[in-house]
């Protein structure tokens, strides 16, 4: 119960940072996928599988609050969560930096493909829906690499520091 509560609070904090701070930054910094990067790091490196639900939660949140059009993000992030868990079980068992980067980029790619597919389908019925910007995907990938690198380097060092103090 305590773990679930901590997880919900951490999710809320990262969600707030993502939807209020990051999206208000100038282009292309507003494409930073902080939540996705942190999720991949915690799931892949730390083995905290329940954190994968953050992706679904984020997708639902942005769709429910009409930040994006429904239900593209819910489905895309749900697909991303399933892809992340499947990839961890089948491919990226290695907890190295390259393993995290490869896993993160693959999850991001699958999320973007899902998002593109949903957007294209929705556009068939509603031409007002804006097309997917591929440059957004490219910048997301760049920032995902940077964020995962930062998470891997600093989080690991902080963890080592805390353990040595204990």
């Amino acid at each position: 119960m305590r773990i679930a509560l901590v997880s919900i609070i951490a999710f809320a904090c990262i969600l707030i940072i993502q939807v209020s701070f990051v999206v208000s930054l100038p282009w292309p910094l507003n494409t930073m996928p902080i939540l996705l990067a942190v999720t991949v790091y915690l799931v892949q490196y730390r083995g905290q599988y329940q954190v994968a639900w953050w992706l679904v939660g984020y997708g639902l949140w942005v769709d429910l609050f009409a930040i994006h059009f429904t239900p593209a993000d819910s489905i895309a992030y749900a697909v991303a969560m399933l892809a992340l868990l499947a990839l961890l079980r089948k491919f990226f068992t290695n907890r190295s930096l390259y393993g995290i980067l490869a896993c993160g980029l693959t999850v991001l790619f699958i999320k973007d493909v899902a998002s593109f597919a949903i957007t294209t389908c929705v556009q068939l019925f509603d031409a007002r829906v804006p097309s997917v910007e591929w440059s957004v995907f490219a910048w997301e990938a760049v920032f995902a690499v940077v964020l995962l690198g930062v998470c891997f380097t600093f989080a690991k060092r902080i963890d080592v520091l805390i353990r040595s103090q204990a």
Partner: protein
Amino acid sequence: MTGRRAPQRLIVAIIVVAVAVPAVLFFRGALLRLFSFAEKPLSGTATWLTDRTIAYCEALEADEDVSKLKEERDLFALKAAELEQFRDENGQLRDELNFVDRRNVRAIAASVVSRELGDRSSSFVIDRGSADGVVPGMAIVVGEGILVGKVNQVTQATATVTSTSDPRTATAVTLLNQTRTLGLAEGMNGSLISLQYIPNDETMNVNDLVVTSGLEENMISGLLVGVVNQVESDASAPFQKAIVEPLADVRRFSSVLVIIQGNST
């Protein structure tokens, strides 16, 4: 996620989502209010950063625009200067043409190609020489017959002209007073002319005009030299002296006329 518990967990998860979505929708307002405490400063900070970034980018673009406009301005200034020069030359050439027609003299136009202007000397080089019939002593005029100098040295293609205010230049002149006094105008250091050897009994006043007398070789009479600026007379001396101010400043002309032959008809 593996094993027998996986389907069970999936069912639980679906139930949680099914409950959470309506709950979130129901408490939507309260959730937004709760989150807004943290979201407002974060969003404000990021918006400030974005605003600063955009302002900086716009300033860079504005700098580029200003640089382009400055370049265009410089280009226009150059063209305007060139146009102004052409207009001046046009005016000068019209005046010179009027003079040639009125005085019925034979003259050739020449361009000033280099200058030497200083306190001790004032001369310039024109692009006409002996091949064009220019010989030393010929009058160089501008506008409608204002003498600016005399040819001093000649090569085949160029001629060096000393201006009337050059100390090396002496010109036989007539004072346009009642008695038409004759005298010798010599250049002084600076840009003035000294009128020498005027007998004391001659009446000479400030603002009297000074013209060439024509009493020297290759120089026609009646060319304007200057205007009397100051008269210096000494009762004990046999001659009086005047300071004459030239009517034309040679620095302002790029083309001149060389009087080849006076009164050709």
